[in-house]
């Protein structure tokens, strides 16, 4: 090879260098890019997406809980929550104090708590307040638009807006129509928007819905905001489904207020009641006072004030917390399904049904109660120590005679008794759609001996839930069909479409229709003439059974001190039952008989509920006679003439005004006036504005009360068993004594009997 010129050699070297740069270096570049962009592109794209895409959860709006008439009982509303980013505030005291002062002012929380949160500088997200209403959130938003200026060393000013430190996120708040209403059924939700008790918990999945997501591209700045890039994927939140309950707001209301009164009057630990639609098993109302009663919007607050103070006073933190938790659990517990009680004499209806179904007690068979009986090797006392004398099944159930049911119950034998015990559903949970339902406490069946049956046949030595008892009583009322109780009638979506509808479910035929009819008749006797007479509602045929059982018995220095369960279960109308009810009063102070304190509560609820349900009254002849008095027409008459007209109807009159002609009257002509009632005759128009103080109408017989009221110019509406005339005593009036009312006002007075209603030792 000839020696190249230096120029040629330079050209060769230049070529080599150029080739190195272009082919080798740039080649490697292209190779590296191809590897990143094409071969591993997906990997890096995913990494980049993780970087840039931010997921925002849109809370699904929780479904509504409606009563049976679509009146909302619980609803969710979207609200806001306010948070700060303490890591950005750092040790900037000026900024922190401004934020602390402003937020605590707007949000009505202590400066101290805000300051504490703002000082936790290792956190980027500290909630200051959740469930903030829009008004307040707007004020915070206004504050976030303000700024302060900082100067750097060069004197350049820059603005820092408070939105750098504070943020607003969506939140949801649950509203309940009334603070305590149906609390044992509805339950409540926790901070995470999920149900913690009651239906809110049982139907949490239905109510919650599916949260949506907004995926946005956000920039990498400290206070990330969205990129001005068309990238936003929205997955809509699927709204929670709503529940339509079987609960009827009105009936629930009657039940709640009657129980409230009983809770105050009897000073009991707990008063509970369940109202059921007889033919379907649908729960129309369920409530309690004491346990299972709390403020739905602040469930953690202990309702019982003295209890709350007691807890507050505990000095040991651990003990205080434990006491608080216990009190909270107790008030959240739906004792209608989660606790058991001893049914006592109420259970005799089950024994009676079994005996009738098995044809073991002829209706005309008599039994002589001497006050005690020896059966299956043990001696049992009747609550009436002197004995009930000779009686049939009808009378025995009316009087709640223990020896009768002990001796007749034994005829069933262990297997026979247990057959009905099981058939009436006392060995299984009722299956009601409420959380934490518990089961009965009963003998181990294999180990039972005959004396166990003797005790059990009048409702002692075992415990059942109130729900089990009402379901069993309902089976007696419902031609022998045991229905599964339920609270949710249907589940509907946000558009109102029915997702699920509960069909009434008959679990089994427990007794025959014939036995059911006989039982209804026998139980009507209990209310008409027996221990349940305080549940009588004029115009309605009520059937029921009272029960009183000893809860705890302690020997003290003063003798034996006991606490009791007073209960009453009933249904009406007796010939074609529409509603079934149970009322239980746990540990009343003073009077503790089911007939004395539980039956009147049932009567009050029944009269409201039956009327509300438009159930046609079936008045007896005597009742009709009472109702027949209508006010005569006296307007335009001379006063003396009017007085004569009114008196002729055995009504009293009261003249108001100085005129000699009646200008108007109350009640006006044609309206009902109670027997011995009063008609107000106005002879001058200005007299109409006069008022009178409401007299005290308590502890009076019907006649006494009506006369006392009439003398004052007030009419009385009698509630309670109006058939039993003289033995009834008034115990409550709808308008308190001393209140100024206009003449002719109608006051409702509640009467009850205190005679022949005992079913346990007195």
């Amino acid at each position: 090879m000839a020696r190249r010129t230096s120029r040629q050699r330079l050209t060769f070297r230049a070529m080599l260098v150029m080739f190195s740069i272009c082919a080798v270096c740039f080649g490697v570049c292209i190779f590296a890019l191809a590897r990143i962009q094409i071969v591993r592109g997906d990997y890096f794209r995913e990494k980049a997406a993780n970087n840039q895409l931010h997921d925002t959860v849109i809370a699904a709006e929780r479904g509504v809980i409606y009563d049976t008439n679509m009146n909302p009982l619980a609803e969710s509303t979207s609200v806001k929550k306010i948070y700060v980013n303490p890591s950005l505030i750092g040790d900037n005291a000026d900024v922190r104090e401004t934020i602390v002062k402003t937020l605590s002012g707007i949000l009505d929380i202590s400066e101290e708590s805000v300051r504490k949160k703002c000082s936790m500088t290792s956190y980027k997200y500290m909630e200051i307040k959740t469930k903030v209403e829009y008004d307040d959130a707007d004020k915070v938003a206004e504050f976030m638009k303000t700024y302060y200026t900082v100067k750097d060393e060069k004197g350049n000013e820059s603005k820092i807006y408070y939105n750098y430190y504070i943020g607003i996120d969506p939140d949801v708040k649950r509203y309940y129509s009334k603070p305590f209403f149906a609390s044992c059924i509805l339950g409540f939700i926790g901070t995470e928007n999920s149900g913690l008790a009651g239906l809110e918990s049982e139907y949490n999945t239905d109510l919650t819905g599916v949260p949506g997501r907004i995926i946005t591209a956000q920039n990498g700045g400290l206070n990330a905001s969205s990129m001005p890039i068309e990238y936003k994927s929205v997955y809509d939140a699927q709204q929670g489904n709503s529940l339509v309950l079987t609960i009827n707001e009105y009936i629930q209301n009657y039940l709640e207020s009657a129980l409230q009164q009983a809770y105050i009057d009897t000073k009991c630990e707990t008063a509970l009641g369940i109202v059921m639609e007889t033919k379907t098993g649908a729960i129309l109302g369920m409530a309690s006072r004491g346990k299972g009663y709390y403020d739905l919007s602040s469930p953690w607050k202990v309702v019982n004030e003295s209890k709350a103070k007691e807890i507050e006073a505990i000095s040991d933190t651990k003990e205080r917390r434990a006491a608080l938790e216990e009190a909270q659990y107790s008030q959240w517990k739906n004792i209608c399904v989660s606790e058991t009680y001893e049914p006592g004499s109420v259970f005799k209806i089950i024994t009676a049904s079994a005996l009738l179904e098995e044809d073991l007690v002829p209706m005309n068979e008599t039994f002589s109660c001497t006050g005690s009986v020896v059966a299956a090797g043990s001696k049992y006392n009747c609550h009436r120590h002197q004995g009930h004398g000779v009686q049939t099944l009808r009378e025995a159930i009316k009087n709640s005679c223990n020896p009768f049911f002990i001796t007749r119950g034994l005829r069933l034998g262990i297997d026979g008794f247990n057959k009905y015990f099981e058939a009436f559903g006392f060995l299984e949970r009722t299956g009601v759609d409420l959380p934490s339902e518990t089961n009965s406490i009963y003998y181990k069946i294999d180990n039972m001996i005959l004396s166990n049956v003797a005790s059990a046949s009048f409702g002692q030595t075992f415990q059942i839930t109130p729900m089990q008892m009402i379901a069993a009583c309902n089976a007696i009322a419902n031609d022998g069909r045991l229905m599964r109780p339920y609270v949710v009638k249907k589940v509907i979506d946000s558009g109102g479409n029915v997702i699920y509808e509960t069909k009434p479910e008959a679990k089994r035929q427990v007794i025959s229709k014939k036995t059911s009819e006989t039982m209804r008749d026998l139980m009507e006797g209990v209310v008409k003439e027996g221990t349940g007479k305080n549940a009588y509602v004029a115009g309605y045929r009520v059937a029921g059974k009272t029960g009183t059982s000893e809860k705890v018995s302690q020997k003290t220095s003063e003798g034996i001190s006991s606490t009791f369960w007073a209960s009453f279960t009933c249904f009406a109308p007796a010939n074609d039952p529409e509603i079934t009810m149970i009322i239980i009063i746990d540990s009343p102070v003073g009077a503790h008989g089911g007939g004395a304190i539980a039956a009147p509560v049932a009567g009050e609820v029944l009269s409201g509920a039956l009327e509300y349900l438009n159930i046609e009254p079936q008045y007896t002849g005597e009742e009709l006679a009472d109702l027949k008095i209508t006010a005569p027409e006296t307007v335009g008459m001379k006063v003396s003439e009017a007085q004569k007209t009114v008196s002729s109807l055995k009504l009293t009159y009261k003249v108001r005004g100085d005129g000699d002609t009646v200008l108007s009257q109350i009640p006006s002509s044609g309206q009902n006036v109670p027997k011995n009632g009063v008609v107000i005759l106005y002879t001058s128009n200005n007299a109409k504005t006069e008022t009178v103080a409401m007299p005290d109408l308590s502890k009076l017989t019907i006649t006494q009360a009506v006369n006392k009221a009439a003398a004052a110019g007030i009419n009385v509406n009698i509630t309670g068993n109006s058939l039993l005339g003289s033995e009834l005593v008034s115990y409550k009036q709808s308008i308190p004594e001393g209140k100024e009312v206009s003449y002719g006002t109608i006051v409702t007075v509640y009467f009850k009997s205190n005679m022949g209603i005992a079913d346990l030792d007195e």
Partner: protein
Amino acid sequence: MNSRVIGKKIRIRNVVSGGSFDTVFLVLVMTLLTIGLVMMFSASYVNASYLNGSAFFYIKKQAKFAVVGIILMLAVSRVKYTVYKRVSYAALGISFVLLVLVLLFPAEIEGKEAFKRWLDLPLLPSFQPSEIGKLALILFFARDMEKNQKKIDTDWKMMIPYLIVIGTMCLLVYMENHLSGTLLVLGLGVVMTYLGGVKKGWFIAMLAVMALFAFIYILEPDKVIKLLENYAGDRITAWREKDKFETTLRWQTNQSLYAIGSGGLFGLGLGNSKQKHLYMPEPQNDFVFSIVCEELGFIGAVIIILLFAALVWRGFVIAMRAKDRFSALMVMGIIMQIGLQTALNIFVVTDTVPNTGISLPFFSYGGTALVMLLGEMGMVLSVSRYSKVTKK
């Protein structure tokens, strides 16, 4: 291959008219500059608007310097290249002075106090003396190797001054805490000695020593920790252990890879980068190319690389046609510097080499660097005006 290139050369010779500069080269420069400005704006505006208050913060400055640079380029292209030959030794001297000055009185830039790369002199915008140094190095080698052309491949002693100059400059730049600058000076020096045609054996020996050093440097950064500043060691560690340091040492590199990877084959479209939204730190500087890759995709990136390759090729064509050895070597040096820097920058953004901090010519933000670059382009154009072809 050789014959093909020569064939092209013959064809082009017939086309180029005498006395005027190389239009193809100018078109390539202007194309790269235009694309560079557009992409730098696209990469920078988010950062600019968030951190500097105006989306146009960087592009306005860069555009002004680009105008100044273009004027300078056209002016320099009118200067006869022999002027540079005369000032070459002086230039080297001055650059050494500046390189020492910058170590003594570095301009302090907030957050980058460890780096002593910038020098603030009265009446001048702040600049990097290493940029001047590289050009001075090219001029020195071109001049000296032309002068000593006869004995350069026979006398081994010729290596001594070259090694001293390269070594001293490397050391000074290295003391600035400027690893990439050091590597560029070293690369330039090595290639210039090769192009100048030093004794082959000596050149190979030098390469071998350097390769050994690089080998130890890369594989055992801890063992040479005393030689290296901490930051450089960290960067190598970060490069070697790719699964670690996600939010610290590897943050920028990872963001770069996410950006490049997101681009795919066709890219997200001009302006549509997501990584530039405050994820990629300083996307207008050294990592502008990753935003280019994200927006224009693999195809766009390859086209840009090919444009750089075309520039290198055209530069070497100009060098080949240069009238004398000095101008040929000078053009080759300048062109090679651009080529090396481009390749090195892409190596960095693709995580092929450790993150050393090296800008992309025509693309990265930096006023004085751009003006100097365009000035150097003017020098290449000036040589093209005196190419052999014009004599015919």
